[in-house]
């Protein structure tokens, strides 16, 4: 994937759990079936309470979001082990979630699927940026820059997980690294990377 991700940000608070990322009623969708993968994207973050989040991450009737960058507070992705969570975000077009901290399984699932980069910020950002502002995430420089204000926030290095997401997930990475046999799947054919 690219080292620089630019676009409008979608901002959420602390403890956004997997039920808010993808409500349980949509877990009947199987992510490895292409039409159902697409549909999961339409529901990404639709469990957020409307009074706190009047702007939806994905507009009603759309499959994709206009926000490639999600900014969150602490403990993003807590709760269930459902891989549908990073997949719904990735399917909707999210490329990176920048959070103060992540819950363990969500972080791991993001990396294993290669759906998105789970980046931790050095300081809390979610109170200082608003949904719709344009920002640039530079994975090499480890920064998030808000385009209008020029304000720069530091990100923690992704370290060993970056090449796994770059490769398109655990299996592709393991094949490229010679850990398992077979050819890596071309990323363009992998659901979630169709726009990458």
């Amino acid at each position: 994937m690219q080292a620089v991700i630019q676009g409008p940000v979608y901002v959420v608070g602390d403890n956004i759990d997997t039920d808010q990322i993808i409500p349980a009623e949509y877990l009947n969708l199987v992510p490895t079936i292409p039409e159902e993968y697409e549909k999961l994207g339409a529901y990404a973050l639709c469990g957020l309470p409307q009074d706190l989040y009047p702007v939806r991450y994905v507009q009603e009737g759309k499959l994709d979001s206009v926000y490639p960058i999600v900014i969150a507070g602490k403990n993003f992705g807590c709760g269930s082990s459902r891989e549908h969570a990073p997949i719904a975000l990735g399917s909707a077009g999210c490329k990176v979630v920048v959070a103060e901290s992540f819950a363990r399984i969500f972080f791991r699932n993001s990396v294993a699927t290669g759906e998105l980069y789970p980046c931790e910020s050095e300081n809390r950002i979610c109170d200082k940026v608003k949904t719709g502002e344009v920002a640039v995430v530079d994975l090499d420089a480890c920064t998030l820059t808000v385009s209008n204000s020029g304000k720069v926030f530091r990100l923690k290095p992704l370290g060993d997980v970056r090449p796994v997401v770059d490769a398109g997930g655990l299996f592709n990475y393991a094949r490229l690294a010679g850990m398992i046999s077979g050819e890596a799947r071309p990323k363009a054919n992998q659901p979630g990377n169709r726009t990458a």
Partner: protein
Amino acid sequence: MTLTEKILARAAGKAHVQAGDNVWVDADILMTHDVCGPGTIGVFKREFGQNAKVWNKDRVVIIPDHYIFTCDPKSNRNVDILREFVREQGITYFYDVIDDPAGSWRFDPAAGPVKRQHGSHYAGVCHVALPQKGHTRPGEVLFGTDSHTCMAGAFNEFATGIGNTDAGFVLGTGKLLLKVPATMHFRLEGKLQPGVMAKDIILHLIGEIGFDGATYRALQFSGSGIPHLSMDDRMTIANMAIEAGAKNGIFPFDGRTAEYVDSRTRLNGTKTTYDPVEPDPDQNFVFEHVIELDKLEPTVACHPDPARRRLAKELGHVKLDRAYIGSCTGGKTSDFVEFARILRGKRVAIDTFGVPATPEIVHELKSTRWGGKPVWEILVDAGVHLTENPGCAACLGGPLDTFGRVNSPLKCISTTNRNFPGRMGHKESQVFLASPATVAASAVAGRIVDPREYS
């Protein structure tokens, strides 16, 4: 080494590991269900090929339990996908909803949600079915595509939840790369007072360390209180390790563990041998904490997260619309028995739903009699809507026609494990987590109350 480190070292073939090490471990059991199984199978076939075989057909355990008793066609189809895979792979342990291995599952709405619709192999909620069917053993490594897989830590094993992609990898190779978690040590000392339950211990603990207080860590329990805790109690506690963000929770091995595991493995003809882990003198803990069980009081986690801890007696002003008893952590026989003890001879004042975790629990509640009356009947007479169709049901909301689902902005008190916004259905509903005793007493009062006033 801590208990978790000892198991992971053994599973990695190493003499020693420590927190922070990344190690490849061998899985003893991989469990999956109807919500994550089809996706896991999809990953397995995409990555290892359409004709690939699972690494070990005796070590993959498939337990449909989440979205079973629903008309939703995709959910019914997902059970059929599992059956097809089991047939193709020759998988030994599949607890199907129906008895016909060539059939397909369709819920019959005309027969209703209460009357039994499953066949004789169905086992109910995976985390309770695993031990009941003889698949939990001390010292082993259990992976499951469900975050509450950590419940099996009650049996002195390393058990943790993983995603579909990781599970697809395990299906093909039997291995997974893990980071060894640092261990937090909790000494449970003394004995619970009457009216205070295992659920109160874990709700108290999560309140102490916070909702993300154990992220990337293991919880290890010890202390003079452990021998007083039944296996059901230990399961209730280990189940909610994930609610503090933990990778796993683990109990020491003792006579009670052996008794349970030995009887269940013999009964079901599963592997009877195992090698428990005992604590070393030189364990490294990142955190130590003592919980004096005698001092605990009935505890509630308020909406919207499991760490919003209050005492039940402080919440008398919270009026309720619904009560719910069920799930892996709160739908076991002992949970229903305590529920019935409080409700006996009384009537619930609000809509109260009960979903036993497994068919075996349904059977036990129907066959256990108090004063000539089955516990099941005591509950029904008190006004509880009880179903003979065990499963995860409304604990996680599920499809719209799920039994007990909170379909409007209600306030619900529940013995389940999560209370995030929308967890049991409607986005604006609120869930309060509490012990079966507190939920029962609150169902009678129509508001949150301390169960000690009702026993």
